[in-house]
C-alpha cells in the first residue's frame, strides 16, 4: 500500500513536469474570399451525420437547418450555419463552416484560424 502510494507520488512529479501532448485538428491555411449578402442559402432535407471528423468527435447537421453562402475558398463554397452551431474538436474546439463543392461537403472552414479541414471522403448533401 505504502509502496503504491509512493509510486503514485513519484509518477506525479515525473509527469507533472511534462506538457501534455494534446491532439490537434489538422488544417491547412486557405484564402477566403467573402461574398457578403450573397442572398444564397441551402437547407438540408435530412439530417447528415459526419463521422470522419478529426479525433472521432462526430457531428450532425440538423434536418431543416439553413446554411448561408458567405464566400468561397479554393476548395469550395463556404456556408455558414444560420440555426445551429458547428464545431470541429480534438483537444481544442474550433467553430467551423461547411465547405461545399457540387452539392457535396468536402470539408470544414475554420473562420478564426482561416484554415481548411479536408474530409477524407466527400458527403453528398440532401439539399432541398
Amino acid at each position, binding site marked *: 500500500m505504502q509502496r503504491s502510494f509512493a509510486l503514485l507520488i513519484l509518477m506525479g512529479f515525473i509527469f507533472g513536469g511534462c506538457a*501534455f501532448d494534446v491532439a490537434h485538428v489538422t488544417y491547412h491555411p486557405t484564402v477566403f474570399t467573402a461574398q457578403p449578402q450573397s442572398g444564397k442559402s441551402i437547407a438540408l432535407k435530412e439530417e447528415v451525420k459526419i463521422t470522419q471528423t478529426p479525433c472521432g468527435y462526430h457531428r450532425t447537421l440538423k434536418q431543416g437547418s439553413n446554411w448561408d453562402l458567405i464566400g468561397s475558398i479554393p476548395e469550395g463554397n463556404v456556408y455558414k450555419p444560420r440555426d445551429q*452551431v458547428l*464545431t470541429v474538436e480534438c483537444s*481544442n*474546439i474550433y*467553430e467551423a463552416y461547411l465547405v461545399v463543392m457540387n452539392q457535396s461537403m468536402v470539408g470544414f472552414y475554420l473562420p*478564426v484560424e482561416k484554415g481548411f479541414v479536408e474530409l477524407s471522403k466527400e458527403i453528398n448533401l440532401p439539399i432541398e
Partner: protein
Amino acid sequence: MKRFIKSFILISLAISMSACATGAKFTEVQPDLVSEKQEHGRIFFYRPSSLGAALQPDVLLNGEKVGEAISWGFFYVDRPAGTYTCVTSTEVKRKVSFTLEEGKTRFVRFSTSIGFFVGHVYGELVDESIGMSEIKDCHYIGQANQ
C-alpha cells in the same frame, strides 16, 4: 482505513459544495441576451455541473481574464464583433475559438473531463437553445474586472 475513506468523501463533498456559485440565478437576474452597445455582441459563459467543482480556472478571452469557470456559475461580456479564443488551464490548456457578430449572442459552456491528476475544464460553443435551457439554473458570478 474505512474512517479515512469516509473522511475523504466528506471533505471532498464539502469542498465541492463550497466551490459552487451562490449569486442570483439567471432567471432572477434576467440579463438581456444582446448587448446594448452598438457594434458589440454578447458572450455568455456558464458551467452547469458540480463535477470537479474545486477546479475553478481563469477564463481568458483573447488573452484577457474575463472571469472564472465556477460550478453552477455564469457571467457575460460584451465585445466588438470579431474573432475570439477562450482559454482555460488546469493541467492542460484548452481553447475554443469562435466568431462574434454585432448584435448576436454566443454561449460558451464549461464542462469537466477526466485528466491525469486533475480534471480538465474546457469550453464548448453551444446552440443558443441549449445555452438558454442550461444556463437557467446557474448563478451570476460577475466578470473578472467588476
